[in-house]
């Protein structure tokens, strides 16, 4: 075998997408200049943790990091999956950060994946575990992932900064490949569901959040049900916090979700993007109202998914067999645009992007790269 060709990249941006697409397309990557001018240079704990997780679910993968952590060499292995795995996601990012790439990888494994993830279940930066359960898993099903064995169970909740949450994730494999979708009818919202949670604070917080959110929805829709998920003792993790996840379900089976969570800031995390977390905690009534407003904002956009699912939607479309997939989304989020660029670079799939000016939505079309579940074939 000849010398391994590495795809050369720079910076810490979009590391998850890069590692995910690198693994799926079996393209080794060499990433340089990772925060090399930062006060703390190099990879962050959650990024290291993600690499460890990749090592866990793949076979024969190679990770090399230089001393300062500013240079990463990653040669992907074969995705094997496996049962009864455990991974500690650490406390610098929540479990949602890890779930996003993990869900897609798991589907292309040799064996179904069953893994226990420990850490933070709800925070304001990443999608909450509730959102994954109610919105992301149905999204996978739409692309032909079998529903049997596809499950996310929230064993205990953990709020930042101390975490202490735990979820159990089961992902079945696709036997051959995903199936392409034509998904441009966003439908009309027929019901709104949600979960309000609190850890180590009074259950009154949930009631207040639910009441505030309902106050906004009630003028639009009677079918609103937000569940209370009050955890105490071991199941409440180690830190106080509260928040709410909301999902709007449409007549055509689209799920539009938003979530938000409030907690005390992580001590050492003083980067500028965190300044809104370090203030006084937002009162629960405002949290409920804010989440409801965010959901209406997403519904107003008129896509078949919400803004945080645009990225994963495009990745799934690009991984489909060589059929045309066609989807409608609202305004493209910056993250989704980066995803589109990475899909082009790694999978050589380019979308045709057409704005639909009458609805202010965007239609994207692509022919999938025809990724087969090769890991399975080898066995």
């Amino acid at each position, binding site marked *: 075998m000849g010398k391994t060709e590495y795809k050369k990249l720079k910076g810490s941006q979009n590391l*998850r997408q890069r590692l995910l697409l690198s693994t799926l397309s079996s393209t080794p990557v060499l990433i340089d200049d990772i925060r090399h001018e930062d006060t703390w240079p190099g990879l962050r704990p959650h990024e290291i943790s993600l690499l460890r997780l990749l090592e866990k679910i793949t076979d024969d993968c190679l990770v090399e990091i230089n001393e300062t952590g500013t240079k990463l060499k990653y040669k992907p292995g074969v995705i094997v999956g496996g049962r009864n795995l455990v991974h500690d996601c650490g406390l610098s990012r929540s479990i949602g950060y890890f779930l996003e790439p993990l869900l897609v990888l798991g589907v292309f494994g040799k064996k179904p994946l069953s893994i226990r993830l420990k850490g933070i279940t709800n925070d304001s930066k990443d999608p909450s575990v509730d959102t994954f359960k109610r919105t992301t898993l149905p999204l996978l099903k739409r692309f032909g992932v079998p529903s049997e064995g596809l499950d996310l169970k929230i064993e205990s909740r953990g709020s930042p900064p101390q975490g202490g949450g735990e979820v159990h994730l089961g992902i079945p494999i696709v036997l051959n490949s995903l199936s392409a979708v034509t998904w441009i009818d966003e439908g*009309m919202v027929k019901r709104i569901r949600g979960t309000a949670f609190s850890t180590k604070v009074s259950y009154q917080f949930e009631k207040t959040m639910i009441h505030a959110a309902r106050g906004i929805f009630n003028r*639009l829709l009677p079918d609103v049900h937000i569940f209370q998920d009050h955890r105490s003792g071991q199941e409440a993790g180690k830190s106080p916090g509260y928040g709410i996840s909301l999902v709007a379900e449409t007549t055509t089976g689209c799920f539009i979700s938003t979530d938000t969570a409030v907690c005390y800031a992580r001590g050492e995390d003083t980067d500028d993007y965190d300044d809104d977390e370090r203030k006084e905690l937002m009162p629960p009534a405002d949290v409920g109202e804010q989440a409801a407003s965010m959901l209406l904002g997403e519904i107003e956009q008129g896509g078949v998914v919400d803004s945080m699912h645009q990225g994963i939607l495009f990745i799934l479309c690009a991984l489909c067999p060589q059929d045309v997939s066609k989807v409608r989304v609202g305004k493209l989020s910056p993250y989704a645009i980066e995803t589109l660029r990475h899909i*082009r670079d790694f999978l050589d799939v380019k979308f045709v992007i057409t704005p639909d000016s009458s609805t202010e939505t965007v239609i994207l079309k692509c022919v999938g790269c025809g990724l087969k579940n090769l890991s399975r074939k080898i066995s």
Partner: protein
Amino acid sequence: MMSRQKTNLMQIVYGKPGSKASTLIKEAQGSSEDEESDDDDFFKPKGEINKKVSEGTDSQNFDGEDCSKFTNHVTLKNWNDEELIASVRDRFVTGDWAKAARRGQ
């Protein structure tokens, strides 16, 4: 108009044909003026606007945060407003189905 918008959006995402740049934040802002005023903040990620100013023409953010959630609390609308509520009413089953069906045609 449609075809120009189409190429614009393709260019914003993939760059001009031939150039492999993904450094198009600046262009995104320029081209969005052609579209409706509502789209003004189409491609301005939170935080990246400031970065662009500080980095001058080099708008690529090599160490941008890896985060799929796009929240912009600053522009969060006040949904207690009756007019706003009326604007999304037809997106719900309780709204006008005929009007909703015509949407996009």
